[in-house]
């Protein structure tokens, strides 16, 4: 018996893992048979909830009670005060325990709220709910930051802009890698083409951001097609190598074509975007002057934030629409099975080229945004590591998942920033500990863990683009006309 099971598992074909995961996923639609959970005793429940509350307080007050910064002579002083922190946790634990044990005895307050939300959004897939919440947060973020974290709003807004840039790049690459299944390791090339197109057009011909944006997208799409043509017959590893080379070629050309691109010195003085001709600066004819409000440097950041948010949302919208159109469905079919695609009469050449071109176009948009935000670009910004990060975002998020890209961008880009600032870890590892040195190590470890825990990315479910709706109004059986066979 034992060796039968052993040989069976040894004989499992490649991809059996994936198949069984698929199967589980497919079964998810039907309500599984689950036994009603056994009721916890009141004591256990009270302890549990008290523990959760205390944990929350521990996290929330960590930077207020445990570590406190005060203004001192010559800068800030850090006081570590674990006792206040412990007392606060103990108070909440006891308080919550007593409340749950005696006052909320008959009800289950911890679950009630969620149930209400669940009922209100019943029938909505969880992804849609999360998406809607994220969208709301994204739309109101600048205001949330200025209200709640005014001291850090500039830094955080800048970080949000960076994250959104990667969300957009991730969504763009998701078309090529996630939907069409063409492994592209040189996506940064299109980012670079977009950035340099805008920078060169703006500095040489004095054109503004809004004029150059579509042109940059167009140029990048053109390069997408140019890359697409020679590599049409390649797939998988071979395609990856060629696209990798392409990304490097673009960078090396930018580096060495001194007279045109400025070589390693890059391009300086790239104009900032304007709002219908209004500049975000001090003085006459500026945004603040026109609306009669006080000038603040944060205004430009908020404006940039909304530009990249709009561009990213455009990317998402176009991708979601495309998925429902024949060309988008063909992308997905191409990823699944190229031979079957051809047997259905699909011109796989065109399908691949449109995928490359569309993905490249959004990369180009993101590139010109990058150029206008920085005001300066050089080939250094477009190294292979950028491609790798974008690809990691797509893979980590789950190939083809739009929401996954957002989550992965926040985790990766936000995570790298967070690790840079974790000086609090010095309290644990001693003052000699420099978190920036271990940043990449921790980061890599986190990626490995995610891949072990969720081998197909954070969001591995794929929502179908077509749903069968039966027409109930007049069926053939009701009309009762003999159909003649």
């Amino acid at each position, binding site marked *: 018996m034992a060796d039968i099971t052993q040989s069976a598992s040894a004989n499992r074909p490649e991809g059996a893992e994936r*198949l069984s995961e*698929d*199967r589980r*996923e*497919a*079964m998810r*639609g039907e309500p599984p048979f689950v036994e009603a959970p056994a009721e916890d005793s009141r004591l256990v429940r009270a302890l549990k909830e008290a523990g959760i509350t205390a944990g929350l307080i521990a996290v929330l007050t960590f930077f207020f009670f445990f570590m406190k910064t005060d203004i001192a002579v010559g800068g800030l002083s850090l006081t570590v005060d674990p006792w206040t922190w412990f007392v606060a946790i103990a108070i909440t634990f006891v308080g919550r325990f007593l409340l749950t044990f005696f006052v909320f005895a008959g009800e289950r307050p911890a679950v009630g709220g969620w149930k209400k939300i669940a009922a209100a959004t019943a029938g909505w897939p969880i992804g849609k709910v999360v998406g809607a919440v994220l969208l709301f947060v994204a739309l109101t973020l600048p205001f949330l930051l200025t209200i709640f974290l005014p001291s850090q709003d500039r830094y955080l807004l800048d970080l949000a802009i960076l994250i959104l840039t990667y969300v957009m790049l991730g969504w763009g690459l998701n078309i090529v890698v996630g939907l069409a299944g063409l492994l592209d390791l040189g996506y940064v090339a299109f980012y670079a083409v977009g950035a340099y197109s805008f920078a060169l057009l703006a500095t040489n011909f004095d054109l503004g951001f809004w004029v150059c944006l579509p042109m940059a997208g167009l140029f990048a799409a053109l390069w997408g097609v140019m890359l697409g043509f020679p590599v049409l017959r390649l797939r998988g590893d071979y395609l990856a190598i060629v696209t990798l080379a392409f990304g490097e070629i673009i960078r090396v050309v930018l580096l060495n074509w001194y007279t045109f691109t400025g070589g390693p010195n890059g391009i300086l003085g790239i104009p900032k975007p304007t709002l219908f001709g209004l500049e975000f600066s001090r003085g006459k004819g500026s945004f603040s002057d026109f609306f009669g409000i006080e000038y603040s440097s944060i205004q430009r950041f908020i404006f940039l934030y909304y530009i990249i948010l709009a561009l990213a949302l455009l990317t998402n919208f176009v991708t979601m629409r495309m998925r429902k159109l*024949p060309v988008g*469905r*063909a992308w*997905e*079919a191409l990823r*699944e*099975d190229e*031979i*079957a695609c*051809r*047997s*259905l*009469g*699909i*011109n*796989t050449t065109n399908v691949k080229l449109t995928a490359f071109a569309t993905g490249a176009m959004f990369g180009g948009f993101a590139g010109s945004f990058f150029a206008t935000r920085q005001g300066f670009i050089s080939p250094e910004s477009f190294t292979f590591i950028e491609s790798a990060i974008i690809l990691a975002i797509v893979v980590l998020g789950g190939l083809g998942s739009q929401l996954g890209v957002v989550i992965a961008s926040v985790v990766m880009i936000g995570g790298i920033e967070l690790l840079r600032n974790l000086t609090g870890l010095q309290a644990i590892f001693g003052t000699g500990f420099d978190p920036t040195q271990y940043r990449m190590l921790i980061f890599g470890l986190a990626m490995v863990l995610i891949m072990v825990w969720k081998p197909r990315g954070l969001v591995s479910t*794929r929502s*179908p*683009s*077509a*749903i*069968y709706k039966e*027409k109930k109004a007049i069926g*053939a059986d009701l009309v009762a006309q003999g159909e003649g*066979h």
Partner: protein
Amino acid sequence: MSAAERIAAQPDAEPLLSVSGVETFYGKIQALRGVDIEVHRGEIVTLIGANGAGKSTLMMTICGNPQARTGRIVYNGKDITGLPTHDIMSMAIAQSPEGRRVFPRMTVMENLQMGAILEDDRYFEDDLRKVFELFPRLKERRGQRGGTLSGGEQQMLAIGRALMSRPKLLLLDEPSLGLAPLVVKQIFEVIRELNASEGLTVFLVEQNAFHALRLAHRGYVMVNGAITMAGTGRELLAREEVRSAYLEGGAH
């Protein structure tokens, strides 16, 4: 048998598909050695043969991948020998490829929609209903991913997907591959029904010689890349060579 009678009545009628003197190579290896085949409108024609005889190669050559080095393939009066696959497949020819090749992560509905990708949207509802009538099983499974279907259901889906493109000629490459006898019977029954009720022309490549020859109006036997025998399904079933080579113990 009405189709066969019709053909017998007008033998000069132009065939829907004619393959003449086709030779195909994989590099230096010759897979087809001058194959001649005709498929007339309203017929079910089967091609049987052993593993490696070149059956699937012929099927793929008709679809343009690989292309025939010599010879001519004429479909519906048009020479399609040198055309790329996607052009051939958009001429009302549909294929259920070998190994079924449904799109594993797409749902049954999406798979069927892929079949109709080149078609006008207005036919979609009707065609979908027809496919669901032929294969009620697919309707039950419409929201399920292609990769999670059983082998038989995948075969139904592959045929259903091919039918969604409103073909005149349906090419089936080993629909019985790896399926239980009962399921094979079901699928062959559907093919018979499609042919009888809608006059769909079917070219069937099969290993399961017994079932294929019983279903088909006419059949060809292929050995080593060449046609060695041809005749009606019944004739071939009765032939001693066929019986000994392909039916020994195979008639279940």
